[in-house]
């Protein structure tokens, strides 16, 4: 669509997208003084961007338990949560895999495993010194024991395949229920 004045309307988009305090070229300023259509259209485009700013600007409410989950996630990774490092016997010596690596690996494995699964979300991982616990939110209608067993088995198998030895205990805790409006 062309403006009644014959200008390509995109030139107004370019001006509207510039910083509000950016100076106009002499040509643009002169045209906007004389062309009512372009002046109105520019005002409309600027108003649209202002509406975008106003839409996204309102405060965002942090989920009340997110701070606690974040602290727990870091604590699980920085050690002490797994209980002990994993030792793998090798010819001529042994391989020691630190607690931190085991915790990071568990988190990664669980995230990748559960990412594509509808109705099961990893809320976090916590360690209590004797092992790690996967905290899950599970969709309403699913069998909680079945989900728990499946996650425990699948994560355990993935860890064992990577570590090459029996894995430390991984518990599953179902800590939240995803009701239909939140189960995305």
């Amino acid at each position, binding site marked *: 669509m062309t403006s009644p004045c014959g200008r390509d309307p995109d030139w107004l988009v370019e001006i509207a997208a510039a910083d509000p305090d950016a100076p106009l070229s002499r040509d643009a300023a002169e045209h906007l003084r004389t062309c009512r259509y372009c002046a109105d259209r520019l005002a409309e*485009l600027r108003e649209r961007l202002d509406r975008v700013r106003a839409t996204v600007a309102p405060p*965002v409410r942090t989920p009340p338990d997110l701070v606690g*989950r*974040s602290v727990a996630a870091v604590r699980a990774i920085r050690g002490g949560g797994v209980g002990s490092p994993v030792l793998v016997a090798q010819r001529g010596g042994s391989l020691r895999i630190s607690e931190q690596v085991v915790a990071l690996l568990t988190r990664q494995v669980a995230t990748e495993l559960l990412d594509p699964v509808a109705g099961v979300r990893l809320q976090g991982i916590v360690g209590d010194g004797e092992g790690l616990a996967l905290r899950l939110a599970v969709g309403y209608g699913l069998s909680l024991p079945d989900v728990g067993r499946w996650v425990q088995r699948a994560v355990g198998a993935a860890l064992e395949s990577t570590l090459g030895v029996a894995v430390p205990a991984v518990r599953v805790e179902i800590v939240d229920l995803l009701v239909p409006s939140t189960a995305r």
Partner: protein
Amino acid sequence: MPRAGSDRTLLAAAAAGDTGAFDALVRSQTPLMYRVALRILGNTADAEDVVQDAWISAWRALPRFRGQAEPSTWLYRVATNAALAQLRRRRRTVSLDADPSDGMIVVDDAVRPEDAALRDERTAQVHRAIAELDPSQRIPLVLREFEELSYEEVAAVLQISVPAVRSRVHRARTALLARLEERR
């Protein structure tokens, strides 16, 4: 930007091995991390995951934090990197049908139901339009327009030049206007 003095003290203490200082930083700055992640990702569940990932990354990166960067710059960088990683993981599976305005809290509640419905639709349109922007444009736009960082601060967070930030923000606004125009 978050308050620099106390964050610098906490970061310095955390880098020196004070785990309590790091936990205090997590408690004070999780709202910032979540807000940035949500504005970039447009999805509450993903944003919650990203916040935990971001704090784990921050903790692991602590030994490399020598205080050259402003603490706020460092925190924004950690949050945006974690959000970007999540976007890359999600790239193949993101559904544009999902309502990306979920979890965005709008404060002006005193409106009539029909106005609220119209507002919600417009809000959803805006968030959808932002979510469709390429991350290379979306992230600078979020930091500049909605987090209200200066161009110089955005450049420091993203470790790119100020002209590059200006160019990306300009292109983001242009693309945003074009998308919103299509949906009128």
